[in-house]
């Protein structure tokens, strides 16, 4: 498996997949600088919560697009050079599927890790009150990665099954918008849509006082039922997607 994973990285040399991740982090750094630049003492006291509230919203629109692009970049090389019919004679299709997913997953994981570094760096630089809430940051890493990987998996299945990459890319784009839009609906509806899970697994809430115009953030209980539902979705997509790919005739 390690050999197959190393080959996936070898195959995407000069494809600049890392640029997509870097570009996203740059956008988020700019957004953070813009966001924290207008903070007063009250805002700084709940700076960490501010990030943990805002980033899932930003992620719900950006991450599906990144997942779609990463999956597409990893898979379209096989379609372009018609390499699947060769690879299928030298390695099991299931292993190729897993290696591709792991390769994409490492990119998605590094995106979230970079986000965390940005959060902590900006927090210290601006002077957020208290130490970084490492337990909450860990939840953020866990939940964001879980949603990212499930979306990446779906995108990979689509990118492998369809030669025309416009189909998975469009699904990624529409999914991202739908995920953001559905946050305005009751949470039961949000649970039905994979892209809505950035919102489902948010654990910071916001109260906005109409008269004082003061925003207060608070920690909400973690929605473990939502996390389990997401895990079930992941398993279902993996089993069905892998079977479809393995059974596909060249």
């Amino acid at each position, binding site marked *: 498996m390690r050999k197959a994973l190393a080959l996936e990285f070898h195959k995407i*040399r000069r494809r600049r997949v890392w640029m997509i991740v870097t570009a996203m982090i740059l956008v988020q750094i700019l957004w953070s600088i813009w966001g924290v630049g207008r903070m007063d003492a009250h805002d700084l006291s709940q700076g960490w919560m501010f990030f943990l509230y805002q980033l899932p919203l930003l992620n719900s629109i950006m991450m599906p697009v990144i997942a779609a692009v990463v999956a597409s970049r990893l898979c379209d090389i096989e379609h372009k050079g018609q390499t699947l*019919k060769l690879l299928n*004679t030298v390695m099991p299709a299931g292993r190729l599927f897993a290696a591709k997913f792991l390769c994409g997953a490492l990119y998605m994981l590094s995106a979230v890790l970079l986000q965390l570094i940005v959060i902590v760096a900006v927090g210290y630089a601006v002077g957020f009150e208290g130490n970084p809430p490492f337990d909450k940051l860990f939840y953020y890493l866990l939940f964001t990665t879980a949603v990212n990987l499930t979306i990446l998996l779906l995108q990979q299945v689509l990118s492998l099954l369809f030669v025309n990459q416009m189909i998975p890319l469009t699904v990624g784009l529409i999914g991202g918008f739908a995920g953001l839009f559905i946050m305005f609906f009751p949470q039961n509806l949000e649970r039905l849509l994979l892209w809505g899970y950035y919102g489902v697994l948010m654990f910071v809430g916001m109260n906005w006082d109409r008269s004082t115009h003061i925003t207060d953030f608070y920690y909400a209980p973690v929605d473990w039922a939502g996390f389990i539902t997401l895990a079930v979705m992941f398993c279902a997509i993996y089993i069905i997607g892998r079977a479809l790919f393995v059974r596909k*005739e060249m």
Partner: protein
Amino acid sequence: MSDIITTTGLCKRYGKVLRVKDLDLKVQEGVVYGFLGPNGAGKSTTMKMILGLARPTAGTITVLGKEVNSRNRLSILKDVGSLIESPSYYGHLTGGENLRIISTLKGVPDKDIDRVLQIVRLENQKEKKVGQYSMGMKQRLGLACALLGNPKLLILDEPTNGLDPAGIQEMRELICSLPQQYGMTVMVSSHLLSEIDQMATNVGIISHGELVFQDSLSTLHEKSRPGIAVRTLNNEAAVKILEEQGVFCRTQDGYLLLSKLADKELAGYISLFFDRHIGVVRIEERRESLEDIFLELTGTAVSL
């Protein structure tokens, strides 16, 4: 010689159409087996089934003495190199990098890359991106890929497709040399009869998914029936004379075409023509061409 590939009752159905019907192939070890058939006859489908890229609807496939199933497929294919339809490559990687991917997956040492590049004469293009290769170079890279690990069997599907005449000749010479130089068995498909005629030692002809001929190329040549073509200065009168003698002939392009005759018998008819003052200007022995035989076997016009 033992058989390196055998198929028994091999069938493949796509929807309601049976693309391959009860195919019983026998490819002997150490030969260049030409798999010939018109476009859409089922050549690629058959080769894909042998490689496990398509699942047979019915029948069995034995490669290198083992019946192929989903469990042992990859271990059998370790000794098989393939090039199906167009070559497979990563255009953004160099030729060497492309080969390294397959050599790693096949567990072949890196030095084998240089060996196969030398065989296909691409050693000077190793560092060039494959996207910048010409079609012929891509095809040769595909062959180099198939040659990695010195497999016992090569399955090549239309390897000369898209090549210019010089490239076709080069590829043909390369394929012909493989059994002697490396002890490989080659199964090569083509819709071009002339190509198979120049490359193969054994032939299988497939038409509408069915095997209509399978034997050595020399046996196919023997099937061509010899005949005599005579050109006279008055063919009409000559036909009448022959009919009087009870000899059937037909006229084509100014020639009288007769079936094979004993020399003495033919000499008798010619002297009859002289007696009736019909000038004889040509007497030729003709053989039915391979194209004619192919046409007869497949009922399809052959591409030349």
